[in-house]
């Protein structure tokens, strides 16, 4: 094969490859921009939290209501995460220390709540659900109007690691508001 033939073959191959790469990257960028990143290469997974908190154990097995920990979800803007003191309602005094769990790591994870001296320490969770700063999302009216936690957050009760299941973009919000006859004025969310 002479050089001309090689060039004739390679140019389309390279061109197609480049076009494919550009198409894939473009799709990825645009999909991420308009919605959520495609769930490949770990992009759809939830972040690794400082403590591997299993919602499955607490919600599905122990039957704890969402609002037991996210106390202000029905009354305020933020659902709020519980204080460590609230974790210790159950996990203190040796009542539930993880040693009776089927999981090998439960005791190790619970131990992370304390420092070497046995003092409880704050936990810096990594936020999973987030809307832009120019959006004011208030939990209370949604809960008060019967919107279930799962509508936006998915089946958290069965997630070992919490991940985002809806894109929570503006269209998502507006569609849902329209479907439920909720206000769609700009100032509903942007104020």
């Amino acid at each position, binding site marked *: 094969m002479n050089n001309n033939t090689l060039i004739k073959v390679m140019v389309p191959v390279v061109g197609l490859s480049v076009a494919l790469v550009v198409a894939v990257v473009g799709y990825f960028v645009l999909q991420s921009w308009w919605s959520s990143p495609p769930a490949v290469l770990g992009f759809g997974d939830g972040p690794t939290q400082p403590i591997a908190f299993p919602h499955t154990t607490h919600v599905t097995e122990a039957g704890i209501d969402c609002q037991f920990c996210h*106390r*202000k979800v029905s*009354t305020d803007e933020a659902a*709020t*995460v*519980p*204080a*460590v*003191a*609230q*974790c210790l309602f159950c996990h203190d005094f040796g009542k539930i220390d993880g040693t009776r769990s089927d999981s090998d790591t439960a005791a190790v994870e619970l131990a992370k709540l304390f420092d070497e001296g046995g003092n*409880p*320490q*704050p*936990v*810096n*969770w*990594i*936020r999973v659900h*987030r809307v832009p700063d120019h959006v004011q999302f208030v939990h209370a009216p949604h809960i008060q109007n019967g919107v279930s936690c799962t509508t936006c957050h998915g089946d958290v009760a069965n997630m070992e690691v919490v991940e985002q299941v809806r894109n929570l973009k503006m269209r998502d919000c507006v569609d849902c508001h329209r479907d439920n006859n909720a206000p769609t004025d700009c100032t509903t969310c942007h104020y």
Partner: protein
Amino acid sequence: MGLTRRQFLKWAGVTGVGAVVFNGCRVPDHEIQVQSPVELPEDLVTGRDNYYATVAQVGAGSEGLLVRVMEGRAKKVEGNPDYPLNTGKHHIRAEAMLQATYHPDRIKSPMVRIAKGGPFRAIGWPDALDRLTKILADADPASVLIATAPVRGKLADVIKRFAKDYGAPSLGFDPIDQTILRTAIKKIYNQDALPDFDIARADFIMSFGADFLGTWIDPTHFMRGYGEFRQGEGRERGHLVQVDSRYSVTAAAADDWIYVHPGAEGLLALAIAHVIIKEGLGDANAARALTGGDINRLSRYQPSNVATEIGMSPTAITDLAHRFAGAHGRALAIGGGSAGAHTNGVFNLTAIYALNYLVGSVNVPGGVVFNPADHQSQITGAPVRDWKAALDAMRSGGTKVLLVRDANLVHGLSAQLKVTEALDNLDTIVSFSSFLDDTTARADLILPGHTPFEEWGSDTPDVGPGYRTVAFQQPVINRFRDTMAFGDVLIRAAAELGNAMPWGSMRDAVRAEARELHRTNRGSVTQPTFEEFWKRSLERGGWWDQGDTVSGTPIPPTLPRTPERAQIVGNPNSFPLHLVPFEGHGIGVGQYAHLPWAQSVPDPLTTVVWSTWVELNPKTAEHLKVKQDDVVTLESALGGFISVPVYVNPATPPAVAAVPIGQGHEQFTTYAAGRGSNVLDIVAQTEDTDTGSLAWAGTRVRLTKTNVRVGLPKLEGIEEARQLPGEPVIEVFKLGEGDRGHS
């Protein structure tokens, strides 16, 4: 191809700028982190309140309460609308109980005195309980006296059981006990429980000395009835006559206030009875029974014979009798307070309550309504005669150990009885009170008790609402200090001494009581399971059964043919004024003097707060050359005296010096110590002949001016009073023609 220096710098610059620019697009760390702090921060405080139903003994009354609790702290007291006695209202004393829980001077932990007269040292509960057990185990039970304030319900059961099993005597202490009233009720109605006075459905009330709208027994309950009596829907306004030697709150509210000489209330009642019987105005059967069939039995009480002694004209007495017997609707006679606080106390009250037979007001709506006594458990205040004997036993060495809970003997018994001397003769005093009152200050060991909002208990009210009632007291908050409920201490001590009670704690004891009620399957709460019953009755504040009443009317006993006269201590020439002590509106007889809210309740008539004073008629004051705010000494025939400022009151009868009880504590927290004077110290220690109760209204005094003046703290006069232009001046009261009592 080589990389030139220029190209390297260009790429490095572009990369650096790109890194900076794109780094700006990152979401800041603080936005992708959300922290669970260690403690519950303010933004997690829900700010929601809870209301818990409970009950409290307020003076002698029983009040169902709802306590507002936020974040574990009791904030506000309200009346329980469900509870049959106070039906949603409550007394200021109940409100002030909050201050008992959070009082800065509250005893914070068990304490022991290192040596007699030495300072106290804080100890732990195991040590305190060990010491108590050792004291009780080492002592001869007969030499141990258990002294408590009047107690009802399950705690009374526990105390009685402890005393019986251990073998120690137990006495209730109330400076102005109700033994005379109870004895009169037993004598005239054959009832063991005090009856309810159905004020709401009465049409004409004649009250003798009972300040039922002020401080007598259960004023909140009576005031609820009084509201209906005056302004109830679908009924005519009731008429109230108050016969009293002092212008009390009830006298002020009455349509007619009639002054009679102290101790002559019984004579007046019998004179009224005489008129009714003689003129055939009352129930013929009752009249026959009360006179033993002899219509002239009461002839000695003919108004003309006793008018001078009573202090009314014969016409006024006859007129009053006609109004009582001819009242439109139901007439009701009530007696108590100062009318019974004489050497002839039982005579007086028996005569007063006999009037209800004549107008058919015994155990009927609108009259006296009997209360079932079968299930009632209480320790009542013992007569002063018993306390004198108890003090003698302390002096003689017969009593060596005193267990005391809220019975402030040093303040409540007169100094003439030399109480401190008797207490000093004891080997050991153990106090279970929550405050360092005058008696607890002399204790060797203190095991501080809970306050009412922290403990379990129950109440069987006396006066009840006319049917069986059991109220439940539940802790509405966790204990605030290192204290333990008195009942729990006794239950533990009994177990240590080998006399274990059937309950492990006061809660168990109350639950056992509730179980019995659940088994009856009737009343205000009925539930299929006990746990449901328990929960529901705690929510409602108790259980009551409107079907469990006392039926029938007893046969009236015969009335005494000859009058029994009150012995008033003090020669009228040397001691011209009649001393009328009365209970403080807020601080009671002193048991609430440590609570600032109770201290700051203005006396309804004088508006004075935080003080002791003597009420004098302007003419008496003028005669004695004293003015408002002059400090005078009051001296009784017994030699004791107190110094008090004068309050000039035109409604005070000229022959009367009225002084509130309750102040004059040496101890009992910063708010009570060294404040005012204790009028009980100059009250003659004479007794009712039947019961041995203190005749606290039977003393004469003389008054001496000092050169000291103080400004009485009072609300009156703070704002200038102005007459509305064009409006007529309405006189507060006017003497009836022929009345000469306080003219």
